[in-house]
């Protein structure tokens, strides 16, 4: 690339992390390190029923026997699990807010800065927000309107108190506590997260949203989200993530479980913008997340859409178990890595039922010295008659020091199944930028156009507000991308 256009692009995309402020509020943390006492402490703090404590302890004992997975295409120094604090609650919230008015104004300011539509803006936007600050749910808006429709949307800690039967039935039903190293750790120590239940035949009247933010230093965030869509129901759920700038790496190991019964549909969208570390690779979040949905019912549908721009390391495979006949799984992903970021992300589509369909559209953008990996599994079991999968997996490279990798696993045991996988690699080339500029389009716009054009199929899946945010995020994240 010519030095002129290189400079142009560098200037244009040289923006710093906008969300890296630290909120100055007192927080109450458990001492660093993990043992059964810490787990009992978490459970007691949350006044949990006995079954949950037992489940946590079983998970912890299992975790002790496990080893960190090494197969992902990422490299990082070993995580010191004893240096992490497994519980951090903003102190002023010890007794829990009763309404928005009781929420620490400092926190509300934080959300203002993050641009979360929590107050009137939320009402205007028609979005119900559950905000998880470090590990505790802060406030859930629009509870009343939702409860009129019979929708339960609350922190999972609250659901444990108010709807223990639902929690007991579904918690760990999609991601068992033995699932993998990080999911098992999460099962032992999760502190909060969102809980959604959509009753039979109900179309959730608004989009539900959760914003996650890690604030305190040296804390791990282990939220747990559980969404159950009963027969014939529909819900669209949005998840946003940010974290302050810190030198140390912070661990985020969440678990999301989705359950869709007959004819139900869940649409789960994520815009992940955890702090990615600085341009030298210092700091940033380790995002080791297990997300999985089970299409249990006939004609059910689960759709994952993700825009991943943050985190130092992302290790995440939102998956769908297509158990119900005629069920549908979808995965739409944009993963952008820059500087020293590493992403190993993709999906698993496990076809078990008849006439099940899945679609995978993955767009990876690598810039700087980053490594971006798509890893996916499509498996059709012997009973998955007429299963169909289509996978399109594209990589865009910006700069010659980054990496783009594709590891698709296709396993078929079903002769009537049809599976198609395609992958391409392209780059933003000097001559493309030159052409744009020659036609009067400046380099900033040209890069943005090319990148957005590349991601269009995925952005089209996002709710409007998120799509706008996603566009903006991509531009911001491409700092120092061209070289």
């Amino acid at each position: 690339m010519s030095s002129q256009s290189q400079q142009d692009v560098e200037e244009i995309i040289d923006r710093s992390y906008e969300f890296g402020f630290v909120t100055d509020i007192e927080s109450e943390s458990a001492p660093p390190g993990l043992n059964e006492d810490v787990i009992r402490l978490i459970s007691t703090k949350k006044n949990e029923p006995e079954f949950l404590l037992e489940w946590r302890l079983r998970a912890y004992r299992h975790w002790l026997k496990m080893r960190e997975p090494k197969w992902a295409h990422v490299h990082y120094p070993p995580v010191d699990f004893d240096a992490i604090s497994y519980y951090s609650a903003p102190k002023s919230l010890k007794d829990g807010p009763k309404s928005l008015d009781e929420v620490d104004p400092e926190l509300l300011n934080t959300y203002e800065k993050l641009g979360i539509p929590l107050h009137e803006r939320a009402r205007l936007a028609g979005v119900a927000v559950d905000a998880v600050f470090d590990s505790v749910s802060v406030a859930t808006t629009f509870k009343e309107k939702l409860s009129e429709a019979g929708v339960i949307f609350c922190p999972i800690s609250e659901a444990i108190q108010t709807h223990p039967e639902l929690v007991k039935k579904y918690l760990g039903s999609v991601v068992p506590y033995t699932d993998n190293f990080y999911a098992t750790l999460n099962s032992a120590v999760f502190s909060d997260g969102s809980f959604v239940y959509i009753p039979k035949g109900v179309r959730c009247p608004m989009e539900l949203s959760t914003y996650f933010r890690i604030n305190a230093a040296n804390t791990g965030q282990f939220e747990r989200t559980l969404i159950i869509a009963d027969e014939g129901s529909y819900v669209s759920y949005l998840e946003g993530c940010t974290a302050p700038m810190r030198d140390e790496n912070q661990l985020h190991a969440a678990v999301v479980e989705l359950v869709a019964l007959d004819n139900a549909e869940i649409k789960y969208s994520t815009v992940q913008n955890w702090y990615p570390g600085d341009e030298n690779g210092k700091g940033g979040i380790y995002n080791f997340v297990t997300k999985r949905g089970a299409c249990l019912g006939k004609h059910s549908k689960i759709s994952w859409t993700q825009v991943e721009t943050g985190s130092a390391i992302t290790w995440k495979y939102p998956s769908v178990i297509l158990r119900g006949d005629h069920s549908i799984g979808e995965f739409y992903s944009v993963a952008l890595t820059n500087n020293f970021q590493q992403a190993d992300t993709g999906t698993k589509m496990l076809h078990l039922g008849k006439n099940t369909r899945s679609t995978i559209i993955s767009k990876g953008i690598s810039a700087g010295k980053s490594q971006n990996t798509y890893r996916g599994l499509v498996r059709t079991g012997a009973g998955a008659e007429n299963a169909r999968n289509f996978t399109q997996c594209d990589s865009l490279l910006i700069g010659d020091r980054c990496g783009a990798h594709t590891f698709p696993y296709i396993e078929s045991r079903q002769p009537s199944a049809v599976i198609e996988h395609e992958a391409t690699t392209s780059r933003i080339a000097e001559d493309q930028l030159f052409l744009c500029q020659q036609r009067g389009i400046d380099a900033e716009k040209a890069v943005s156009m090319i990148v957005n054009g590349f991601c269009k199929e995925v952005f089209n899946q996002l709710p409007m507000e998120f799509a706008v945010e996603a566009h903006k995020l991509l531009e911001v994240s491409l700092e120092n991308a061209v070289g």
Partner: protein
Amino acid sequence: MSASTEHLLNNIRQLQKNLPAPDQPWLNTFREAGLSRFAEAGLPTRKTEAWKYTNVKPLAENNYWQNAPATSEADTYTAKSYLFEGTSNPRLVFVNGRYTQTLSNIPVLENGVIIEPLENALKNRPGLVREHLGKAVSEAHPFAAINAGLIANGLFVFIPPSVVLNEPIHVLLLNTEQTTRFSAHPRILIAAGNHSTAEIITHEAAIGNVDAFNNCVTEFVLEAGAQIKHSKLQTGGNTGINLSGCYVQQARDSRFESHTISLGGRLLRNDLNVKFTEPGASCSLNGLYIGCNAQHIDNHTTIEHAAPYCDSHEYYKGLIADQAHAVFNGRIHIHPDAQKSNADMQNKNLLLSAKAEIDTKPELEIYADDVKCSHGATVGQLDSKQLFYLQTRGMNPQAAAQMLSAAFLGELLEQLPSESLRQKATKLVESRLHEITQRPVR
């Protein structure tokens, strides 16, 4: 080192003792290095990513670690029917891993071309062999390591610069039924000088219920501008294990073309690794496999683009029926600075039975930005519209299925460079397809 690896290592050392050993320290060092690489890697398990779908545990459980009994008259007689037609070609026949002179034909060679059994070459021209041996096998592949540890039998071919070999070299590796299990570890080493041209046809065959472990390594070292075509036909064998490795190193502007036709074998694994070390090299890798009965056919390929301006093209197609299990793992690795690389890879499969399985994994690992890479994989069945069309034109469903299967695989047969091999392979494919499609629907 695990106990099973240690046990195997002892077995291999026993075999090593009986090798014809020209007294050459470098050769002993070479063998030792091989064994220590194996000791380090160990016998792969299903947890080893490259062996996730292929189980080689029988190698630890069964005693394959002995040489075959001496080649008998009967063996030689049987081998005759496997020879390619045409007598003028250089032809080398190995029965149960041993060079069989009576069946072989090495014509008078001109221009300094060398074609001789490896055993002889190690004695006659150790310098030349040493210069090339192991050059292309860079990776710590456990079975290539064993092969290195047991190096003795096989073939050495040297094509001097600018020499064009007009006739393809035929190599037959045949295993015949014996009363005991045995293994063979032949090494075929092909060194192609600057701008030389040659074609090699390898036929790996096994008779009936031969329960042998074939661990063949073929090594190609291509100097600048060399052009090599290699076709490999694999047939026969209802039992036993065939691990067939092929390692290619390509210098500037060289071209390598490979055709692998896998029809036989109970457990068959092909490792095909190509490395471009200098700019302008290209390769084209084609593969065809048909799995039936309880066959397990695994094709692993790796193309290392370690230099800029190289092109690779890969096309594998397979048909899997009955309880067969096929695996395809294609890896394209574009190194940093390997700009202007072009790579495309396609794997297409027809899965014809509810008990068959296909696992395919086309991988891209890319560390340079100015590259054109694509890959695709499909798994499907015969097209019902096409079947219907053929039936409306009077063909019964079996004939229609056979015809469509042949059409699916045909394009790979057409590309075989040797006319006689094409005819032979086409016949074999047709009869295999007939066998599969005539069976009652399961």
